[in-house]
Structures are given as structure tokens and as C-alpha cells.
């Protein structure tokens, strides 16, 4: 049986719960286009925002993993850390820093409401806003700790 990576499981988790009731809105109050994706797509990020009209990206990165070993030396589980980066840029009708704020609130709501299954919790966040030559990508990276058994 294939054991899914923590990265893949986290994307499934966010696909299920993140923004499921269109919590994230633009400056005018209407729902905006939000996607959940894997990190490092072979596609320019500016085109995601400009050509595809996406207002907020929740991007799931590769995980760090540490095995949890039983007293008999056999692993019984894994403690994994999965980065989730929220990214937005200023567009018509969308102020990046405001939509990012709503994304953060939504990500916290998901973590606070659904910690079970495999055990997930937010363990920290860091701002990672970058200048991309002509525009800023406003970003914040959250880290989910993800404790699960062998499956």
C-alpha cells in the first residue's frame, strides 16, 4: 500500500476544509478565486495571479519528517512538519495584505476546528513577502505539525 506523503495529505486536508464556505473575500466583500496547490509548480507565479485571476494561493511545501520510535526500536509513527504558504498580490479589487489577512484567519479556523484524524496543529508562522521586480508577492508561511501512525 502506498503511504501518502505528509505534503499530499495536507493538500487533501486543505482541499476539504480550507475556504469551504467562501470565507475569503475581496475588498468589495465578494468571494474571490482561491486555490490550494503544491509548492514549486513549473509555471510563473505572476501568471497564476494575472492570467488565471487567482487572488490567494495556499501552497503546500515538502515536509520535514522525524520518526517516532517505540521502545522496541520499531517505528510506530511520524512527526512531520509541513509548510503552507499563503500568497497574494495587489490586483484590482483586491488589496493583497487584506486578502492575506483573511487567508490567515481561514487557515487558523481550519487548524482550530479540525485538529484530529492525524493530529495537526499550527506551530508557527513567518512573513515572507518578496519583491519580484515590479510588484510584491505578499506571503506568509505557516508550519503545520502533523503527527500520524505508520499508515
Amino acid at each position, binding site marked *: 500500500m502506498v503511504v501518502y506523503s505528509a505534503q499530499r495529505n495536507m493538500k487533501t486536508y486543505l482541499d476539504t476544509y480550507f475556504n469551504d464556505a467562501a470565507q475569503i473575500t475581496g475588498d468589495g466583500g465578494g468571494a474571490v478565486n482561491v486555490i490550494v496547490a503544491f509548492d514549486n509548480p513549473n509555471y510563473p507565479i505572476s501568471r497564476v495571479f494575472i492570467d488565471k485571476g487567482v487572488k490567494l494561493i495556499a501552497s503546500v511545501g515538502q515536509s520535514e519528517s522525524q520518526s*517516532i*520510535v517505540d*521502545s*522496541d526500536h520499531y517505528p*510506530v509513527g511520524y512527526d512531520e512538519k509541513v509548510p503552507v504558504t499563503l500568497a497574494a498580490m495587489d490586483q484590482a479589487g483586491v488589496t493583497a495584505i487584506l486578502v492575506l489577512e483573511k487567508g490567515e484567519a481561514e487557515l487558523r479556523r481550519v487548524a482550530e476546528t479540525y485538529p484530529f484524524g492525524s493530529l495537526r496543529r499550527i506551530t508557527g508562522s513567518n512573513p515572507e513577502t518578496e519583491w519580484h521586480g515590479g510588484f510584491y508577492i505578499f506571503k506568509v508561511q505557516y508550519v503545520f505539525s502533523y503527527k500520524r*501512525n505508520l499508515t
Partner: protein
Amino acid sequence: MSVKPSITYGHAFLDDCGVDLMSLYAKTEDGQTLQALETIDDDYYKLGVTGSIGNKIGFWSYPDEGGSDELALSSTAYPFIIIRYKTNSSSIKAKVELVFHAGGSGSQVVLAETSSLTWKTVVVAITPSETIDHLRLYANGATGIVYYEFILICKGQFQIPNTANGFDFDPAPRYAEYIVPGAVGNERDCMGAEPSIVTMNCDLDIDTGSIGDVGNWLRTADVIKGEVFIDISHNAKSEPFQWIDLGDLIGQFKVTLDKPDFNRRTSQSEANHLLELIFKEYRRGPANDETYIERFGLDL
């Protein structure tokens, strides 16, 4: 393959082979001449045989061979029997048989005729959908002695999914130490000793499978993880010991369970649901007539 620790729970019938039930056994001789049933140190039965001819069969029945549904135990509800035995020679044979309610499949030999000069313990699954009427402890095949130390029929053995936060086994010596007035240092005394201690620190957040599966903290119909230990603790009044298997550490013996400690430890961003279990070695008599291998079941 990892072998996890396991422990019995849910006693239906226990004969600890002391004086309690000894007088209730009934004797049957078919070629074996059985001495009166004895208990040694109020700890184990001695089935002495002084004559052996003909079919060379002799057994003690609990409660007896008459009546029906005397134990009246469902083998579906209580599917396991554990027996500890030894013989004083390789000629005489131990054997244990469960006799089912009339109309069932008759009986089941749960310990086939066998000899062992050291204590052995066997765990046997009982044929399901039967009603156990009575049991027979045999001493067959020759003159000599068969010893039985306990017979336990129970709901099962719970496999402990992990001891991820630590496992301590502290086998105790067979002496006590005391302070001598006016002297420095302890004196040793062989009049008694502390029990051995096993401590397991478990992570309730980690298990596998579904409810009721081996490897899961929940038995079928359990409400909280590790509930089996509340079951064991609550029923300790009527279940004087449990049989523990230490898993890969190797070792099987009788224990009692101290109060299980369910604790939830938190740090700033993490909560852990933990369970601490402290087991104490249980004995009715001294360990003087056992080797350390027999005492701790290292050869089982």
C-alpha cells in the same frame, strides 16, 4: 517483526491453585492411583500419582463430572484459556480438557498430554460458540507428580500498541534490605522481598487499524483509548492478577496493575495524551523453587 506487550483482561474463571477451590475438585481414576489433591505454599496444585496400570488415566474435575452447565461459561465471550504447569519427570503427563455443555461438540483438549521439568505456560483459543461445563486436570501415563499453578479463562489478551515514551523492567532480587540500628549500611534478609516492577509509558495518540483491531487502543465498544486498563483496575477486586507478556523484551509472569495514569501533557503548541502503567509482580508463594528463567517466563 515487532512483538508488542500484551496483558489479559476480563476473567471468567480463575483457579489460582490455592486452598480456595481445592476441596471442590472431584477425582476420577482409570488406571492411575491419585493421591489427595494438595496445594503447595497455597500457590500451586500437586497431583501425585502412586500407581499406574491399564489405561493410565487419572484426573481431577472442577467442579465435578455430574450436573450440567456448572461453570456455564460462553466460549464466545471468554475465548482464551491460560494454563501453567510442570511435571516431576518426563514419564508422567499433564493434560487439560474443557468439557462442553451436552449437545455441544463434546470437549476440547486445551493442553495435549505433555511433560515439562520446568514451568510452562500455554495460551489456547477455545472453540467458539460452546458453553463450558467443567474442566479436567490430568496426571496420566506414569507414577509421579504433575503441578498446576493456575488456570485462567478470560476475554482476551490486549496488545499494547506502543510504549513509545519508555519501558522499564526492574526484576527484583529475592532479599530485603533493612537498616541495622547503630550501624552504617544495610543488612540483607531473605525472609521476604519486594516485587519486580514493570513500567510502561505509552502514547495514546499513536495506534493503528480500526476500533477493535490489534494495534488499536480501543477495544470494540470502548469509549476512551486505553479503557482496558480501567477495566483491569476496576475489576482487580475479583481478578487478583493478570498475565503479562513483555513482548520483544521477553518475559511472561503474573502481575497486578497499579492505578493507570492517564495524563495530558501540554507545551505551548503541542498536547500529548499519555498513559503510564505500573505493574507489580504477583506471587502467592516464594520463588525459591523456580529458576529465574521460570520465574520471569524467559523460555516461553
